[in-house]
């Protein structure tokens, strides 16, 4: 089912926790709300679920406006951050809870639970109380309980944040698999950008109750539209430069920072200064300022760390702010010591400019 939010506002006293958000989530889409803690993700999700009444705006499920429909009649599956399993009921009864509320015949309940238990791989645990389950198992019960009622929409609020790192990886794949199998419209909340990129069809980046950018993971990663989006999605070096000219014919911007010049492709910048976002893995370490090589900068190594798949340098950057540079597959790399000078080349053919 399609979900449409039109200009939703939800305030707590003077604080506008959700501050005018409009979105459309398509049928069967895995849509993620991503943002730092306190940006309003939970508030928005709870407004969708019907636990909060929006102060302004319209919520539509399909064609139907649901603002006035109470939470228990919204036909939503919800997975809570702490799972919210009923501690006095066993796994089977937890999952059966929503079906029994719908007065579904016993045989059908058994049948549907049998299927969902299989799909979330909880066979044999039907009679356990939640307190006797591991974190991952509790997570599966919560998911099964939300899905067994065949909701039109699935809402999940940081469902993996209480699991350890390894389990988080496998659970997120599983969630994605089940979601695809069922084709259920899913709105997922997380503050972990990697997790968001791994599971989502599209991501909405939230900041202080407002949308920063909505798009597919790659779109946001490669074309962040704002400083916030660039810094939040992966790590990024933000360099501020003065615009020195524009080559209309080749669509090249000529810019300069700390006396070093840099030309790169892109549209004509509107002002005299530009903000560039350069991902650490786009920067290439070079031997020295070879003749003819353009866009080569130098800096002093502040620190370096060997991380297995890469070496990560922190180098003094052209704006004075340190730059992060990653060199992948570093077996042959001659790792520079702190204080040495490092020469590096910025990419000229990437979309680098961001809206401030």
């Amino acid at each position, binding site marked *: 089912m399609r979900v449409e939010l039109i200009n939703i506002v939800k305030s707590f006293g003077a604080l506008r926790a959700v501050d005018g958000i409009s979105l459309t989530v398509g049928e069967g889409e895995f849509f993620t709300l991503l943002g730092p803690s306190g940006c309003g993700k939970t508030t928005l999700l709870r407004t969708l*679920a019907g636990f909060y009444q929006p102060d302004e705006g319209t919520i539509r499920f399909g064609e139907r406006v649901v603002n006035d429909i*109470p*939470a*228990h009649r919204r036909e939503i599956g*919800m997975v809570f951050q702490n799972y919210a399993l009923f501690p006095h009921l066993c796994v089977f009864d937890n999952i059966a809870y*929503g079906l029994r509320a719908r007065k579904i015949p016993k045989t059908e309940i058994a049948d549907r639970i049998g299927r969902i238990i299989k799909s979330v791989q909880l066979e044999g645990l039907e009679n356990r109380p939640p307190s006797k389950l591991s974190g991952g198992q509790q997570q599966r019960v919560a998911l099964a*309980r*939300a899905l067994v009622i065949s909701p039109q929409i699935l809402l999940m609020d940081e469902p993996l944040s209480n699991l350890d790192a390894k389990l988080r990886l496998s659970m997120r794949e599983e969630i994605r698999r089940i979601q695809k199998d069922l084709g259920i419209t899913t709105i997922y909340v997380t503050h972990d950008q990697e997790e968001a990129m791994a599971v989502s069809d599209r991501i909405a980046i939230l900041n202080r109750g407002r949308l920063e950018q909505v798009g597919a993971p790659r779109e946001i990663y490669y074309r962040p539209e704002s400083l916030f989006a660039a810094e939040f999605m992966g790590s990024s070096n933000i360099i501020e430069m003065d615009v020195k000219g524009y080559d209309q014919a080749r669509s090249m911007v000529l810019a300069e920072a700390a006396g070093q010049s840099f030309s790169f492709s892109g549209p004509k910048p509107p002002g005299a200064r530009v903000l560039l976002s350069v991902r650490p893995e786009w920067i290439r370490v070079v031997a020295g300022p070879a003749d003819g090589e353009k866009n080569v900068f130098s800096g002093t190594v502040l620190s370096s760390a060997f991380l297995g798949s890469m070496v990560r340098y922190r180098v003094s950057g052209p704006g004075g702010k340190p730059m992060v540079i990653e060199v992948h597959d570093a077996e042959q790399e001659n790792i520079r010591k702190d204080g040495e000078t490092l020469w590096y080349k910025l990419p000229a053919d990437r979309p680098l400019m961001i809206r401030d």
Partner: protein
Amino acid sequence: MRKPFQAWNIILIATLAILFFAVLYPLLYIFKASFISTDTGAFSLKSYATFFKYPYYLRCLGNSIFVSGLSTLLALALGIPFAFFLARYRIPGKNIIRTLGTLPLILPTFIGAEAWLLLLGRNGLFAKGLQGLGIEMPSIYGWKGIVLVFTLQFFPFVFLMVSSALNAIDRSLEEAATSLGSGKLRVFFTVTLPVVTPAILSGALVVFFLCIENFGVPVLIGEDFRVLSVQAYNEFISELGGNPAMAGALSMILLAITLGLTVFQKHWVERKNYTMTSLNPIEVKRLRPLPTFLIWLFCAGVVFVALFPFAVVMISSITKTHGPVMYFGQFSLENFIRAFTIAPRPIVNSFFLATTSTLIGIVFGIVVSYLLVRKKGAVSYLLDLLVMLPLAIAGTVQGIALAATYNKGIIVLTGTWMILVLAYFIRKAPYSIKTTSSLLQQIDPSIEEASISLGVPPVRSFIRVVLPIMLPGIIAGAIIMWVTTLAELSTTIVLYYGPWATMTVEIFQRIGSGDFGPASAYATILILSVLIPLFILNRVSGRDLASSL
């Protein structure tokens, strides 16, 4: 626009209405009545003028403060060392001493008074025995007896509060002081004592409050020594038709004191409490045999003196009696046979009223706890205030207020059993609300939301998922409500009428007429009805029964 939690809003309004009519309105009513002249019906300050003009009334106030203050000091003198010895030293039979040490506070005070009358009253066992030996005991009647009973029954409050403060002290705290070069005594006076001082102060305030609001003890052994609560009752009930204005004025003065104490406790003392989570409790020390024996003697002695009288009451119940004369040593079941066959009505009444008001109190308590914990808002502050208000009102005052308010007019309750039920559940529900609301606080709200999102409406969600989790706490709260209602005297004595006399009223009246045998039989039934459920609760849930009071 339709609001999602509408059902709860209706419940909130209904709850506030009940509290308004049962608690606040009656107080306002007697407040007003205290300013209305009984003769002319016009506004008048005569009652208050009378109070402050005649030494007779002022002396009641003075007496109240005197016995309460003295009892508080003595309760501290017993309770503090009792707590300290039990917390710090190895004593034989410590667990039994600790458990028995908390018992006095759940045993009805007026039965304690009866017991001391049996021992040291005019026909008392000891009094007569000592007289035979030519020793004249000081009279138990008057302030001495009151102070004796108060001290022995209320010292456990000091003991409990001080022990929990002592147990919360981490070993490192005293070790730090020692390592900074303090000797043992210095550590005690500069570290330990200051840290437990707020608890001592809390305990003292609670004891003072309980003494000043108590009715049963001073009315039974005070005789000519009049205190405020007894005087207010006398003015209200007086055979000459009573003086509502004077009763109102006395009630207001008593109310001002109890409210003042409560506010002081809430806003001063409780805030001063140091909260510490003790990781390593202080080591329990083994002393040499002689000091160990002396400490044991003190603790066991206190417990014995506090509980022995209740044993005497139970023995009296199976002793042959003739009016006030007890034939100790000659056993007979006559008192019980009479209680069960000739006059069983008070027993039935007590059980019926306690059970009915507890059942209502359970529902009320659950609803109020839910509103307080889950539906926090501007109104919940008011709700909290109203629901806890009865804890700050003397039983006599609450009885007088209710009886005066619903005596005439549209709703007449005075003279029905319903007013007793109303008074009971309003007065006892706060105990269960304290337990259930702290339990509810630990239950994550998302459990309810999960149920709602699975299609179950809010109120039904609460009943189906939250209630079952809270059940043990609810049962514990219900037992506390039930036993304290059963033992209630001060409100009952004002509100009951003829056929609805309870066991407590029966005991009270029989002691008054010197009919000790039957009084002891009812008292024994009462003691057992209080102790057995608490014992079972303790066994089943391992709860410290006293912690709920």
